[in-house]
């Protein structure tokens, strides 16, 4: 993904907008007089979107988050080895896409995911640089004030 350039002001604006939106959503959902839960909560949050694409993006993340919790719970209940569980889950997902998928196809998908995981090392390192950059910029600003 090509880098989107943010100025210090935009970064600050992004964080403060997120805080405001989060507070507003808390107030209108789980902290309201009639708290919203489950499907009603998700429906309300989806209703706050302002375009079809925005709604679709959020729905996809809700689905992904739901899968995350279901899978993690299934793993916890199963008492299985993490490595085996992970490999079998990926194999099942690929079979869902293509019932005729071969063992080789499944290995290719696992390798693609593993390669991405390897990149996490570099990402974490670069992330550290990036955070340091933000913190240093903030320090300079605080010192100047």
């Amino acid at each position, binding site marked *: *993904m090509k880098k989107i350039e943010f100025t210090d002001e935009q970064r600050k604006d992004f964080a403060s907008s997120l805080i405001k939106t989060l507070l507003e959503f808390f107030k209108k959902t789980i902290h309201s007089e009639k708290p919203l839960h489950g499907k009603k909560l998700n429906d309300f949050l989806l209703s706050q979107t302002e375009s079809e694409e925005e709604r679709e993006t959020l729905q996809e993340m809700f689905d992904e988050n739901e899968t995350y919790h279901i899978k993690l719970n299934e793993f916890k209940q199963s008492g299985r080895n993490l490595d085996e569980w992970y490999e079998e889950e990926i194999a099942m997902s690929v079979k869902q896409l293509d019932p005729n998928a071969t063992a080789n196809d499944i290995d290719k998908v696992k390798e693609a995911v593993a390669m991405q995981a390897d990149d996490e090392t570099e*990402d974490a390192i670069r992330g550290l640089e990036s955070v340091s950059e933000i913190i240093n910029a903030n320090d300079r600003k605080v010192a100047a004030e």
Partner: protein
Amino acid sequence: MKKNYLLSEREGLALAMEQLLHYNVWSATSLNKSDFEDESLLKYFEADFGSPEEHEYENIICAAVNRTVYSKNYIPHAKKKEFSKKCQRQHLDNLRMAKLTYCEAVKGMSRREAQARLKENKMAKRISIVDGTIKWGIRKGAKLGVAAGVSGLITALAPPITAPAWVIGLMTYTTISILPDKIKKPVRKFVSQTVDKVVITAKNIADDLAKRAVGVAQKAVTTIEKIGPGAKQLWEDTKVVALQGWQTTKGVVKQIGSKVKNFFGL
């Protein structure tokens, strides 16, 4: 030969690096004063792992991130969908990791359990992304009247697994901004006591990785010698690659270790 997709040395190193990043953020003294005095998020940190309450907080956070991304005209419209998803995932990663550190600091969770949960989170995240990408591929394929194949899946998987560094930086900044002091204070104290141990752990992992890289190169020489003419050059090249890998790894750890240590004035 069965490949291990889960616990390679590089992934171990990645986890250690992520923790360093996470700890570095926690120690950001200039961000001590929270702009976010609301303590709602304490409930998320106190909620049982895997509880419906935890899930609901995460969905609200996703919705707030998504709304913020889509409301900003300084973010190019064509990039909003991908950017929003990366930000949402990164924000959840940050919060889940922060919650584990909070549990270590306040609730006496063992380091062993925190590490195990961190790995489980990582695997579940990957599975959920693969699953989501498959569903997306099937929907798009159905619309276009074509079947989505495995090669299509691999192509579609390439971008979403990790966030680029600048997204990690931006989202970490926003994550730290939304946490109330009741969460930050105990965690910061805990982090200042353990950061040195983390630096040592990261260094040990890197050393282990380096030793293995050299070991692999040494095994390769036996095979290469059997191949005959030209093998010598190949061996020399292999040694250079192994050495570069070793030095890079050591250099990176040293650089990060010293940064974190300097940060804490150690």
